[in-house]
Structure formats: structure tokens, C-alpha cells
């Protein structure tokens, strides 16, 4: 009701797969996309790893205070390609969810991610980051140990890191907690993933003064892959099986793998100094508008 003036914020992206649809289903709304991005059966980091490299070599700890299980970091082989992989880890069972703090990392997680990414720089390996978090953990310890500083440092350090960086927003790209591992040379985003400065619920509770206006806020925030591509924030939309990645996880996981491998192959051709220059130019251009 609030956004009657702009009925256009649906799904601007061309859907490559579903063109000759025989039956006309109602066009999915942004809120539908939010539900798919958060679907309990949607592939998680643990599923991608299990499929790509069951022997993935996880590495632990920030060498300062802790090892944050909400952030995965390790050495992973994807389709014969050796990469350093970091990503938010959500759980599927209740025990896992609690252990991984629902995928909300502490500062220790961001610092661990950076420490392991430095190995990629040293040993000339590409970096792949999988982004899937509702946000950085809002906790007493997280603040005491410098959540803000940990994220800020990653933004600064990743901007000059001498390694190709492929970022994949697989599920929820929640605010600074997502961005803390999402500065890179190629930003991929799954078709039904979301990426936003604030959750629709949070935005609604502030600007609509009631969280139940989340669907309206989601529309207004333009947090879908189609909009983000238009806005120049992401480079590529990775198509999902019809209805969402949870309908055919194996196929979705394979499509993501191929998209990553293609991006790595392209980035490896560029000298690393030039990559860093291009990375700066890419982020510098974001939010620069012609008058």
C-alpha cells in the first residue's frame, strides 16, 4: 500500500531459462525472492563444500583470541582449481545452527578470513568467497572485540589484496557482515539471492515503524539480483533451477561451480597489479552518478 507510486520494482532481470512458459504463473514478488533466499533447503556452504571437495582442508583461528565456526576458511579444490575459500557457515540441524550462530560471524571470523586470504596472496592462489549471512553477529563480545574494526580492516585490506577474488552471494547478503568478505574482482550473485544494506524487517521497523511491512521494504530496497545487476553492484547473475536452488540443489551447486571456474580462468589472465587497479576503479565507480 505504501509503494503504490512505483509498481515497477519487480524483477527486471531477463530470466534466461523460463521464456516459453506454457502456463502463466503470477510473477514472483521481491518478497517471494526473500523467502527463496532464506529457504531451509537452499544449498549452504556446507553443501557446496561437500559437493566440490569432500576433502576440503579447513584451517582455523584468527591467532588472536578464537576460532569462529560461523566463518569457514580453508584450502579447497574446485574442479581441479586450487583456491582459498572463505565463507559464512550456516547450519542445517538445530545443533549446527546454534554452533554456527546462524551464520552470523564474530570479529574473530572476519580476522580469520583475512588471515587465510593472505595465504592466497603469498602462494598466488585465487580466492573464492561465499556470502550467506543475515549480518555480522550483534553481541557484547563481538563489540568488545571490535566487530566494526574487523569488518573495516577487511574492506581496506581486500581492496589491495594481490590475488584474484571471486565473490559469490549465494543466499542472504546481509549488510556489513556480508560485505566484510565481499570486496572482489568478480561479484556473482545467485538469481534468487538477496543483498542489502539492511534486512527488509529492519528497514520496515524503522521507516514504516512496523516490521510487518517487510514485503514493502523489500520492494523499496531493490535487493534482488536483477536490480543489483542494473545498479552495477554485481557482475553476473548465476541462474538457478526453476523455482529456486532448493528444487534441484545438485544442479544449482554445479552451475555455481562452473560460474566460479569461468571467472577464475578470466581473472588469471590479468596481471595481479592490474587486477588491483581495476578493483579500485570498480568500487570507486559505485554510487557515482552523472548529473
Amino acid at each position, binding site marked *: 500500500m*505504501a*509503494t503504490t*507510486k*512505483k509498481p515497477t520494482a519487480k524483477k527486471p532481470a531477463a530470466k534466461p531459462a523460463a521464456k516459453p512458459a506454457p502456463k502463466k504463473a503470477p510473477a514472483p514478488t521481491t518478497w517471494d525472492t526473500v523467502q527463496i533466499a532464506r529457504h531451509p533447503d537452499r544449498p549452504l556452504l556446507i553443501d557446496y563444500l561437500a559437493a566440490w571437495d569432500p576433502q576440503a582442508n579447513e584451517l582455523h583461528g584468527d591467532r588472536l583470541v578464537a576460532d569462529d565456526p560461523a566463518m569457514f576458511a580453508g584450502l579447497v579444490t574446485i574442479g581441479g582449481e586450487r583456491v582459498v575459500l572463505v565463507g559464512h557457515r550456516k547450519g542445517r540441524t538445530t545443533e549446527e545452527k546454534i554452533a554456527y550462530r546462524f551464520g552470523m560471524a564474530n570479529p574473530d571470523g572476519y580476522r580469520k578470513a583475512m588471515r587465510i586470504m593472505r595465504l592466497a596472496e603469498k602462494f598466488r592462489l585465487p580466492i573464492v568467497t561465499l556470502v550467506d549471512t543475515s549480518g*555480522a*553477529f*550483534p*553481541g*557484547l563480545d*563481538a*563489540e*568488545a*572485540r*571490535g*566487530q*566494526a*574494526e574487523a*569488518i*573495516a*580492516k577487511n*574492506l*581496506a*585490506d581486500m*581492496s*589491495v589484496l594481490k590475488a584474484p577474488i571471486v565473490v559469490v552471494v549465494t543466499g542472504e547478503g546481509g*549488510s*556489513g557482515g556480508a*560485505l*566484510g568478505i*565481499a*570486496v572482489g574482482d568478480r561479484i556473482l550473485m545467485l538469481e534468487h539471492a538477496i*543483498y*542489502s*544494506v*539492511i534486512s527488509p524487517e529492519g*528497514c520496515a521497523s*524503522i*521507516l*514504516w*515503524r512496523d516490521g510487518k*511491512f517487510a514485503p*514493502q*521494504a523489500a520492494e*523499496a*530496497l*531493490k*535487493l534482488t539480483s536483477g536490480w*543489483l545487476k542494473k*545498479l552495477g*553492484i554485481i557482475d553476473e547473475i548465476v541462474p538457478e533451477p526453476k523455482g529456486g536452488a532448493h528444487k534441484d540443489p545438485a544442479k544449482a551447486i554445479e552451475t555455481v561451480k562452473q560460474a566460479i571456474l569461468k571467472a577464475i580462468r578470466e581473472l588469471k589472465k590479468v596481471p595481479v597489479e592490474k587486477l588491483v587497479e581495476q*578493483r*579500485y576503479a570498480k*568500487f*570507486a565507480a*559505485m*554510487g*557515482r*552518478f552523472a*548529473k
Partner: protein
Amino acid sequence: MAWFTKAQEAPLRVPTEALWNVCKKCGAYTPKDEYAANLKVCPACGAHGRLSARERIALLADKGSFKEIAAEVIAHDPLAFHDAKDAYAQKVAATREKTGIGESIVVGTAKLDGIPVVLGAMDFRFMGGSLGSGTGERILQAAETARRLKRPLILCTASGGARMQEGIVSLMQMAKTCAAIQRLRDEGLLYVSVMTDPTTGGVSASYAMVGDLNIAEPKTLIGFAGRRVIETTIKQKLPPEFQTSEYLLEHGFLDKIVARKDLKAFLAKTIRFLTAAK
């Protein structure tokens, strides 16, 4: 009773607020001119009131030395955002009108006690000092100017965080500003972050925290997540000193807390020491 007290109160209220500053922290009354002369610091409790961007620049820049850059960069509305009541474009236009500045930060070249610097000051009155695309671009231009002129960069923050109405574009300003500042620092130039009340959310998690020196004014609110969000998440009450500059100093995230009256002298002394500027 009510009619009696109301009749008494009405004529008194107007001159009270016009002539006195009432401290938000301790409630002490200070005559307005005395408060201004004390740099908007409460003489009773030492609480540092908020300065506008222009007031902050006047505090730090030598008289007449500030030359604004990137003034033509103003807030944009990349999402054509509209909430329950307002269109963002109208809100931001009204804010520009009211504050007389084009974005939530004013940046420029200046002299600080004779030292050539690039200086930026955020203004909380401009949409809560939020980080819009125009803010990010102004900071990037300030950092690039500092790099070109080989000058120290000083940014004074006052912000509630990212600007929701610019959505993902606002979020990306965190990466953009940090990238610009990292390039400056990689060339051996000095970046000083001066955090003033408040410095929270996306601004605390970007350019505010990556200073070669992280400085804050006393009793400043600095933190990433909101107090209420944390209390709801962990289901416990937070200590009163939580997320103050004193708390951050104790936990190792600030180099120093500097009172407003000492800020300019502190910056001049430290910049001279580090860069051997004359």
C-alpha cells in the same frame, strides 16, 4: 491544578530554551553564549555536544584557509526510494535546504595550525549523518586529493551508519571509502580518523576505524550494532559504559581520547611529529 501550572509555565518556557542550553546527559543549564564559548561542551559534566560540519571545520581549520572540494557532488536517489510516508528525493532536498550543505560530509583543503591538510567533517543534521553515495564520493575525492597533494587526511565522523534509502549503493560506500583510504596509506600518507558523537553502524565499520590514528572525543557513542538489537539477541542488559569512547579505548580500538578544546593542538603536534611538517 492543571490550569494553574500551565498558566505559570507557558510564558517561562520560551526564554528558557532560547537563552539556555540544557545538557542532554546531565540536565545542567548553561547560558547559550557561555555554552558556545565552551565549544558546545557542557561545563558541568563535560558532555561534548554535536557540532555541525561548518562548526567542526571552524574548530580545526585556520581562519579563512578552508577551501571546499567536491561541493558539486550531492545526494542521489539511485533506488527511487519511497517509504510509508515520504519520497527520499524530497526528504533529502529538504535536508539540503535546512542544513545548507549538499551531503552529510563537507570536505576540502585547509591549513591546520599552518600545516596543509585535507579535512572532512560529517554533519549529523544531514539525515543522521548517514553514508550516502554522495558522502562516499566526497570522501573518495578527499582521499584522492590528499594523495595527489601528499597531505594528511583528517575525517571527523558523526553518523548513524549507512543510508537505508540508498540501499545497496550505500553499503558499497563502505568498501569504496576504505579502498580510497588504503591507497593513501599505502603511499606513506597519514590518515587520522576523529570519531565524534555518534559513530555507529556502517561508518564505524568502514573509514572511521581504519585510521593510522583513531581518535575520539570523550563520552562519544561508538559501536557497530545498536544497543537494543544486542540486548534482544543476547537477552541481557548491557553495561552503561558499553560503546562509549572510554569503552573502546579500554578494549584497544582507540589511540587516544582527546577533549574538543585540545583537538586542534593535538592534531598539529602529532602530524608534525609523524610527518616532520613545518
